């Protein structure tokens, strides 16, 4: 039981992600997550506006079940499996974030400055969340994948486009954390 409640180190998490990829392929499908954004658009009726979304979403019922599993698994984890949500951060990280105005850095998984209901109802907080989401949805579809599809599936199957995409992920992530976050907060 202790193992289930303690945080898992990288050398447990990494192999179990690889196991998830293996099972996804073994079950006969291509591992990835961001195509679901398109599928959900199709289900919401986007096909009426653009032919791009005129697809048969029922062919992706397996992926929608996977997404439902992710949501259920998230609730199970949040309520039962993470009794101690503190993150063991580098002291430099804590100091840096505290300096730009973050409080209780690393005490939970998500900073209240971005992930609290109060913030959602402020204009700035709402815009940060929704615009990040737009970049995630647009960027993953334009690049043809996300961390699962490109960084893990694509790199491990030695596909050149995935290497380029991952370089892009880091260009964006570095700009965001080194330059945009300090401006926003």
């Amino acid at each position, binding site marked *: 039981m202790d193992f289930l409640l303690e945080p898992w180190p990288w050398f447990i998490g990494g192999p179990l992600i690889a196991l998830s990829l293996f099972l996804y392929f073994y079950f006969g499908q291509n591992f990835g997550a961001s195509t679901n954004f398109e599928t959900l658009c199709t289900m919401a009726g986007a096909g009426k506006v653009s032919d791009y979304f005129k697809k048969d979403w029922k062919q992706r019922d397996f992926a929608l079940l996977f997404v439902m599993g992710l949501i259920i698994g998230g609730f199970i984890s949040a309520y039962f499996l993470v009794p101690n949500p503190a993150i063991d951060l580098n002291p430099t990280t804590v100091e840096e974030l505290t300096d730009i105005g973050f409080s209780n850095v690393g005490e939970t998984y998500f900073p209240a400055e971005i992930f609290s209901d109060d913030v959602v109802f402020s204009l700035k907080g709402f815009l940060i969340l929704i615009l990040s989401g737009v970049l995630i949805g647009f960027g993953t579809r334009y690049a043809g994948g996300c961390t699962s599809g490109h960084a893990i599936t694509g790199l491990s199957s030695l596909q050149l486009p995935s290497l380029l995409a991952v370089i892009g*992920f880091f260009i964006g992530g570095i700009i965001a954390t080194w330059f945009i976050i300090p401006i926003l907060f």
Partner: protein
Amino acid sequence: MKNIKFLLLGIFFAIVLSKSQAISWYRFYEMFKFQSFHMYGIIGGAVVISAIIMQLFKSGKIKDINGNKIVPKPKKKGVISTIFGGTLFGLGWGISGACAAPVFVILGFKFLPALIILIGALIGAFLYGLIAKKLPN
């Protein structure tokens, strides 16, 4: 209901991401600031082991549940689309700490903020679909 296994796999994957803290905003922040090994260990470890698995798929030593050869779909080619699209995604990921699978998992932890990110992502995917044909690859 033969696809129920994907539901169970989703639950498993969500628990793995949650327990290894690979959904935490702080973990991605420190990754992009090169201040911790944790996420590099997780992603790097997953890639190395997956690469071995991919070789077993490629050689045909492991077939899927229906006995078919497993061939990962080739990724779409295009230097501009992958680098520029990747950069846009990286910006959203770096700011919100959410990527495509974790955003669904985070709903369980921080429902409303994650829902806003998810709605944003659907708007983003929709905008992409509208202009996909006009964009350079």
